[in-house]
């Protein structure tokens, strides 16, 4: 990786430059919180954002997307293309960039998911350093740092950015759109100082020792019933999670009943029908088993395949859950062993 330094005042140049041939998506304010949305004017962007309501996954795998159009009479697919236009995801925090790496594992390995891949291939990622907020616990999973999965990463040094350039594309757009200069020793020293302070800023320090073992060993723990009784099975946690990727597939017919579209929508393992099969059998009928499964899959199922947990500690689920259920509380309860 190599590095450049960009003055803060010059940042709008980068955004404006990127806008000339990309759709630039960045954090903007909405009703006192933030969302990733198209930026029409660089001044809209709010790089001081804590976290967004929905994670960046929605720009790679929208909540609802058409997979193909079909014709019923001959069971023929008439169109299964998706057009992915060039995009920049601007200002992603390390946790969110890491979340994309976790999604990549699922969608780009084995049978490649062409819809995700098309968008991913055509998306440039500009990361941005952040300040820990009370619900963050990325430090726990080492997802507070990111070393791959972006084109440019900007670390805020107060009056300037320390820009890490990961890809040729990243280096090229930076060079093209904005004045930058070489890194001095002072810059790197300031960078280290900023990172050091950042690492001190976390308030959650969850004990994750032997989590997969705990999940198996305490599979029948009353902890799950306690959380289950408070869970609304609303699925909010899954929707806002940058790493939850489950989906449902449905066919929709046109009014003429002759053609239609196969559509996928975000789904949640918290929904009752999620694991129901024919003949009235449901593998996860009760709330607590569904709530447990979400953690079980995140901290063990996924880990068993990809050697990482399926959580980046962004805290969105904590903010979204009406009942205040959070990974931090769940893991702590499991570690403590008893009920909450």
């Amino acid at each position: 990786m190599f590095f450049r330094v960009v003055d803060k005042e010059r940042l709008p140049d980068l955004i404006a430059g990127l806008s000339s041939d990309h759709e630039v998506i960045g954090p903007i304010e909405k009703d006192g919180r933030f969302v990733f949305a198209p930026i029409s004017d660089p001044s809209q962007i709010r790089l001081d954002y804590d976290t967004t309501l929905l994670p960046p996954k929605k720009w790679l795998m929208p909540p609802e997307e058409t997979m193909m159009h079909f014709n019923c009479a001959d069971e023929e697919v008439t169109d299964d293309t998706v057009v992915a236009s060039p995009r920049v995801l601007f200002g992603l925090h390390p946790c969110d960039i890491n979340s994309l790496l976790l999604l990549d594992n699922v969608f780009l390995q084995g049978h490649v998911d062409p819809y995700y891949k098309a968008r991913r291939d055509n998306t440039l990622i500009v990361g941005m350093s952040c300040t820990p907020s009370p619900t963050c616990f990325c430090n726990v999973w080492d997802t507070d740092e990111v070393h791959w999965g972006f084109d440019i990463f900007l670390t805020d040094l107060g009056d300037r950015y320390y820009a890490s350039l990961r890809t040729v594309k990243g280096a090229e757009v930076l060079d093209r759109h904005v004045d930058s200069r070489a890194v001095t020793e002072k810059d790197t020293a300031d960078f280290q100082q900023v990172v050091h302070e950042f690492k001190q800023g976390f308030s959650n320090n969850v004990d994750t020792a032997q989590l997969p073992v705990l999940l198996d060993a305490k599979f029948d723990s009353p902890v799950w019933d306690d959380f289950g009784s408070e869970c609304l099975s609303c699925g909010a946690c899954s929707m806002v999670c940058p790493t939850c990727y489950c989906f449902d597939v449905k066919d929709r017919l046109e009014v003429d009943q002759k053609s239609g579209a196969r559509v996928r929508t975000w789904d949640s393992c918290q929904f009752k029908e999620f694991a129901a099969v024919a003949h009235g059998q449901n593998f996860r009928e009760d709330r607590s088993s569904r709530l447990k499964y979400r953690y079980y899959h995140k901290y063990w199922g996924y880990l068993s395949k990809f050697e990482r947990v399926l959580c980046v500690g962004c805290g969105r689920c904590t903010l979204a859950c009406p009942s205040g259920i959070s990974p931090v509380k769940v893991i702590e309860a499991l570690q403590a062993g008893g009920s909450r």
Partner: protein
Amino acid sequence: MNDIRVDECACDGVGNAYRPWPARITSIQDLTEKEKLFELRLIDPEVREAFKFHAGQFAEISIFGVGEAPISISSAPSKQGFIELCVRNTGDVTGALHKKQCGDIVGLRGPLGRGFPFEQMKGNDILLVAGGLGIAPLKSLINHIHDERHEFGKVTIMYGAKNPGEVLFRHQFDMWKHREDFDLMLTVDESDDTWDGPVGVVTKLFDQVDVDPDCTYGAICGPPVMYKYVIEEMRKKNMDVDKIYMSFERRMKCGIGKCGHCGVGHQYACIDGPVFSYWEAMNLQEAI
């Protein structure tokens, strides 16, 4: 940068893995009141050629406007160009499929999942235990063994159905029995006057067999409640935990490890299974 279209992006060589391919129904056989046996032939020769499967794998059957359903392939991998599916009418897709006629077209995607370790099983005795519709995936294995019968030792099939009317593939079993390729043991939960065989759950049949645990592979498929009891019997016969295989049914939307529905313990039934060894299954929460 330019727009990228899905069809331009290099996927795993076979194009869009979610895209069903048209297949023609070449024959339909009524098996029971609820089950029919469909024979399908993929229309595109290239796709047909690429459709190479193992016993225990499944396919996604698609009827546009209704949806998709995962169905085990019942025919033997050695049978080229066609696949057979034994389908019970239980809902939307299976119901719509049951309404189709010979010559109609449906969508097909696959083969999917991990099947039985056929090569590894060679040279051994085989004990297959099926309950009800569970015979569907096992039939592929039986057919395959049948095609390479000389590679196997003793082959025993235990099959339990609710009542004589629900016994699937009776005709074929009679044929095999006749040729003494297999030891076939059938039982029903409730008998009627057409039945002169054993009555009771399938595990009762274990009293009647000798198993050499050193060289016997087990294969199980049936309703969820069945596995525990069958495994108990197999373990009583000292069969190794890693020589017992079983196929699981879970809800599935994609069949390729993305949609998340078929989670069983820390695995996915669609790509890590649907066939698991008992050793694996023991380590899967909520599996058995």
